[in-house]
């Protein structure tokens, strides 16, 4: 089922649509609140991506009425309003997640994937990519154990779990270190460099790739 994007800014709508479609999500678009509301109550969508400030009716009013009518489709809010009160209001009205502009597109993709993931989904015991194997407690490459620190293991787990996705530095910092730290330091770069030294450097096939300006991705190229 497609995603519904309700966004009045044409440029934003265009890049969201393009980006999501290129990542395998079919998209239907609405340019104002009323149109979005009518589409949402009529059609079946997996997820609604909703801007807050919209012409004709606000995103808040749209979600309020959708929830009142019993529509349970997950909603991800996009907004430039980022006070705690705004976040709380959005979540209170029934939003499932909240993303503040400006955001990294990779961040949006990650949230979309996480909202679409079926509940009860569990990580398999062992995940593998090429000759990299990851169990609950250790990592092997080419059958040989790779010695990782706790943080490095967490980092590798994240990359494996989200393989093929470009992960931003902010997302990595939050997931691995629980740090909401838009740091000026190069913590993530350093951690990645050390992980590569152990996971990639001794091997012919490189798995961890830097996407300049965006972040990091684990995949076979």
């Amino acid at each position, binding site marked *: 089922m497609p995603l519904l994007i309700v966004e009045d800014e044409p440029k934003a709508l265009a890049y969201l649509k393009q980006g999501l479609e290129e990542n395998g999500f079919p998209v239907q678009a609405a340019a104002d609140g009323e149109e979005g509301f009518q589409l949402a109550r009529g059609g079946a969508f997996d997820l609604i991506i909703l801007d807050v400030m919209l012409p004709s009716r606000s995103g808040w009013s749209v979600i309020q009425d959708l929830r009142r009518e019993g529509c349970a489709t997950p909603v991800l809010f996009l907004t430039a309003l980022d006070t705690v009160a705004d976040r709380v209001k959005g979540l209170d009205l029934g939003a499932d997640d909240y993303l503040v502009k400006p955001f990294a597109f990779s961040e949006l993709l990650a949230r979309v994937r996480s909202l679409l993931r079926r509940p009860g989904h569990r990580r398999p015991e062992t995940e593998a990519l090429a000759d990299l194997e990851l169990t609950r407690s250790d990592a092997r490459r080419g059958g040989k154990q790779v010695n990782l620190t706790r943080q490095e293991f967490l980092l590798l787990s994240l990359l494996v779990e989200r393989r093929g996705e470009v992960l931003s530095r902010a997302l990595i910092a939050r997931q691995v270190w629980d*740090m909401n730290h838009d740091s000026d330091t190069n913590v993530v770069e350093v951690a990645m460099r050390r992980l590569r030294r152990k996971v990639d450097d001794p091997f012919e096939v490189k798995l961890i790739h830097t996407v300049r300006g965006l972040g990091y991705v684990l995949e076979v190229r």
Partner: protein
Amino acid sequence: MSWKSASRPLSLRLRLALVFAAGSLATLSVALGFLQFGFRHEINVRNDKLLAGRLQDVAAVLANHPDDPAALAEEVLEETPASMGSPILVRVERGGRTVVESWGMGDLLPSGLLRGSSQVRARNRHFLAAERSLGPYRVQGALDITADDRMARSFRQNLLYALLLVAAGCSLLGAWAAHLGLKPLRSIAESARGIDAQRLRERLDPEAMPRELRELAQSLNAMLDRLDHAFERLYRFSADLAHELRTPLNNLMGEAEVALAKDRPAEDYRQVLESSMEEFRRLTRLISRTLFLARVEDPAAVIERGPVDAGQLLGKVLAFFEAVAEEEGVALAGEASGTLTGDPDLLRQALANLVANALAATPAGGRVQVRVGLDDGLAVLEVKDTGRGIPARELPHLFDRFYRTAGQDSPGTGLGLAIVQSIAQLHGGTVEVSSEVGAGTTVRIRFPEP
């Protein structure tokens, strides 16, 4: 007494006028009342004396010339001289029968009317009456005091007019005094009208004010000082912010323009876009930090404080930086004890900013020591490095937004320490910095436990 009316308070001028009028009315009423009473009393005493004197004269004739009706008649019918005022009517009775009486007295004041009375009214006239018994004789006298009454009445009326006149005068005086007294206030208002964001430098002159208003003028001046500083900081901040935005925008525009100026291979465009992403991230960081500062500086900002385990806080921050410290050859260690009361996310961010700064300032072989705990009931977050140190002249500017120490080569936003300070202030605490060039810097956040 309350001057409050239902709708709005009375004007000061009206209040003073009323107070003056009421005060003068009360004082004058008492004074004039006494005056009037005294005047009346004097007249009464004189009249009593006159009447008694006349009866005495008649009694004397009766005593000296008993059985001499001619002498008695002469005495009784004698006209009181005009200079003595109204004539005194006299009647002499013997055994209930009139022996002799003044002309016209029989009609005007019959004997029965006078008997036993001290004041008698007859035919619109007012008499003072007296009686005296002398052997078989009864002597009655009556003094016409109608004129005295009229005089007293007119005296009282004149006093009343005077009273009203004075009261009116006093209320005018009160209004004028209020007007005069409020003049300095009007001049304050006049000066205040001239002050706006562009002219915050103007001040009131407390020396030119009466003593009572000096304090007001001084408080207003102090308020203007504070506003002036706040505005100045705001101006500087917006100027700095615009300047900070200019650099990444310039890079973005320049790169895009050059890239678009001619056809290039796709790889070149990719490079420009990648470079743009870096600038965008810089802009995003700048905006989110500025917004964070704006939010925590909102006077209405409150934080939710809860228990924060010092060991956990330290552990997270150390885990975040340990790899970087190791790469840079800096020993990063810490000690923690106890439980603080604060906002865990904010405290972590503050500590992380401090450690990031310390690591950036410390060369290989150095040491960064972190301490989180309680000191005499104060929560303490301390980061001590053996880095290059900060010259004394730079210390006062450390917390200024966008301030970067000389020789700092990191691409920081210059907002890190301002954020640390805001977080400390949100917890009701302070940040202290001590530093020695070449020996290192210690930054300490301290805030009271609630």
